[in-house]
């Protein structure tokens, strides 16, 4: 009962603050702007794909096919490079196009043709989508030139010719083959998830840091600490209170996140690229029930870690200014690191489990684990993140049980014993 009252107090003290309400409004606006920025960034990445080199494996020696490839290479300003095998091509170029045997003859007879594309995904990064956007761009050029060739061969007007080239592109990730449309959607969903995790984590950290510091400023803290309640209960109630507030923020900002998703799911097709959508639903389907459970655990751990870290900062700060000055940069560093990871990319390897050390990176490790089909990575990363979170909670309890909660910490040079 006392514990419930403690948690309720933690929540009410913050919820009734005008600053908290103003913060909610600010962030909804912020997410709207961020959504648009991400939409523009996605378009830029797609455009960059147009300028990359592409390996071409032609299994068809037909003169029609050869002419088509030469014409396409000329149109693409020499960006097509012939390679003997797909594997060799992938070792040199971001993408490889395979023209199947009989393609030339098929072009003259059939309206629908299949072209095969290959790319290697070695990182969880939005920029990786450019690798297979390249294939889509080249296939679109081939399709247009193919129509011209057929029109010349049949001696008819170009507008009378109907040909559709369907690219079937595979992304190879750690030996696993993933359809690129699914992967595109998942990478965008993961990026959105990372933004959400970063923002919520930073807010949880800031609010919990300020809750203790504010309580000290309000001069009610010493009275609280002399109540017949264990310090452990007070500390854990503060952590739970911080998590509850974060969950409220999740609900409040859902509309903002939805706007971002709507922004990035705008068709981004450039020269034959397929429409790519990003939704949490796609991500959930890809991760499966086990992945969803791990993802939920990761969000809970992240909130608890952020809340505990914030409490640790706030409990050793004399006032909110100090708490803000310390928690702000730490929160921003964690958040920016998470954003940077989207562009630098998270390596798709067993080392991804080390992302658990930051707790914030756990969702990315879970995603990497799903792409590679190696569940051990997700489990290891979750184990590491759980240990880090528990250590942080224990540290908070220790600080609350010590008098550092009142007198703070002092960093002094150790005196040499005489």
């Amino acid at each position, binding site marked *: *009962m*006392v514990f419930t*009252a403690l948690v309720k*107090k933690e929540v*009410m*003290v*913050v*919820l*009734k*603050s005008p600053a908290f309400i103003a913060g909610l409004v600010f962030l909804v606006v912020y997410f709207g702007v961020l959504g648009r920025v991400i939409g523009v960034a996605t378009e830029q990445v797609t455009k960059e794909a147009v300028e990359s080199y592409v390996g071409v494996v032609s299994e068809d020696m037909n003169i029609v096919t050869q002419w088509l490839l030469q014409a396409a290479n000329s149109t693409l300003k020499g960006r097509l490079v012939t390679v003997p095998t797909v594997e060799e091509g992938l070792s040199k170029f971001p993408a490889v196009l395979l023209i199947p045997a009989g393609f030339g003859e098929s072009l003259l007879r059939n309206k629908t043709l299949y072209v095969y594309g290959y790319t290697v995904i070695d990182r969880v990064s939005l920029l990786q989508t450019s690798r297979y956007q390249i294939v889509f761009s080249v296939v679109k050029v081939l399709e247009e030139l193919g129509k011209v060739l057929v029109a010349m061969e049949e001696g008819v007007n170009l507008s009378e010719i109907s040909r559709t080239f369907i690219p079937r592109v595979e992304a190879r990730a750690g030996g696993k083959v993933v359809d690129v449309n699914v992967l595109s959607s998942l990478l965008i969903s993961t990026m959105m998830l990372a933004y959400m995790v970063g923002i919520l984590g930073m807010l949880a950290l800031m609010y919990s840091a300020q809750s203790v510091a504010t*309580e000290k400023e*309000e*001069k*009610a803290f*010493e*009275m*609280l*600490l*002399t*109540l*017949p*309640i*264990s310090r452990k209960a007070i500390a854990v109630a503060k952590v739970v209170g911080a998590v509850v507030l974060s969950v409220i923020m999740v609900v409040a900002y859902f509309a903002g996140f939805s706007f971002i998703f709507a922004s990035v799911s705008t068709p981004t097709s450039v020269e034959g690229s397929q429409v790519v959508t990003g939704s949490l639903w796609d991500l959930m389907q890809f991760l499966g029930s086990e992945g969803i459970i791990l993802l939920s655990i990761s969000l809970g751990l992240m909130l608890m870690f952020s809340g505990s870290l914030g409490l640790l900062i706030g409990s050793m700060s004399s006032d909110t200014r100090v708490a803000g000055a310390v928690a702000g940069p730490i929160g921003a560093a964690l958040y920016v690191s998470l954003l940077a990871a989207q562009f630098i990319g998270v390596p798709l390897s067993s080392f991804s489990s080390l992302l658990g050390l930051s707790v914030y990176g756990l969702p990315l490790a879970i995603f990497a684990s799903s792409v590679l089909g190696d569940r051990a990575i997700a489990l290891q990363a979750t184990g590491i993140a759980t240990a880090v979170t528990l250590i942080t909670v224990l540290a908070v309890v220790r600080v609350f049980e010590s*008098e550092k909660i*009142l*007198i703070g*910490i*002092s960093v*002094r040079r150790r005196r040499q014993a005489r």
Partner: protein
Amino acid sequence: MSSSIAIDVRDLVKVYPGGVRGVDGLSFRVVAGEIYGLVGPNGSGKTTTLRIIATLLKPSGGSVRVFGLDVVSDAIKVRELIAYLPEEAGAYRDLTGIDFVRFFLGARFRGSRLEEAVEEAVKIADLGSDIKRPVRGYSKGMKRLLALSVVLASRPKLLIFDEPTSGLDVERSLRVRNLVRDYARRYGVTVLLSSHNMLEVEYLCDRVGIIYRGKLVVEGVPEELKARYSARNLEEVFVRAVGG
């Protein structure tokens, strides 16, 4: 130890990080039911002593017992017996006065006893309809009365006040002193308070301990001390006792 001893401080030492000695071998006893005042200049160790007795700080040396319980090893049990009003105690600015009262008293009481305690605190605070307003709109005096009401309505065995009337106007200071004195007498509560205000100490306290540089210089009944030092008031006692 006799159960009539409410506070037993023996050779108390408190060294803060960095080597600053807040208290340096302090010893005194407070008998159950009496009002005892710790008097001394800034930095003499009054607040540190009160914080140790209130289980907020841990002693570096010596021992402190409250009704026979050690303040370190029996901290939670000690907290059940005490209520502490720090200097400039405030309240959560975004809660209403009544929410604040209910939260603090809810940590001690349940059910109808809680309702009685809340009603008592509201009566002590005497803030009228302001008790339902957020604390951020309260004056310093109102906040002080709110905090005091919670402390008194807790009905502890030991009340600890650090500068109980600090920053209050004359009218509110008188009211606080009367409340403290009435509660102590009516319910047989032991009171330990610190103050700069010698008049206040003289008015409220059965016995006074003068503390200087972390040590007890002299203690006794105010009238006896004045007689011993041929002083007209406690201020002169203080000056003569510390050799000024």
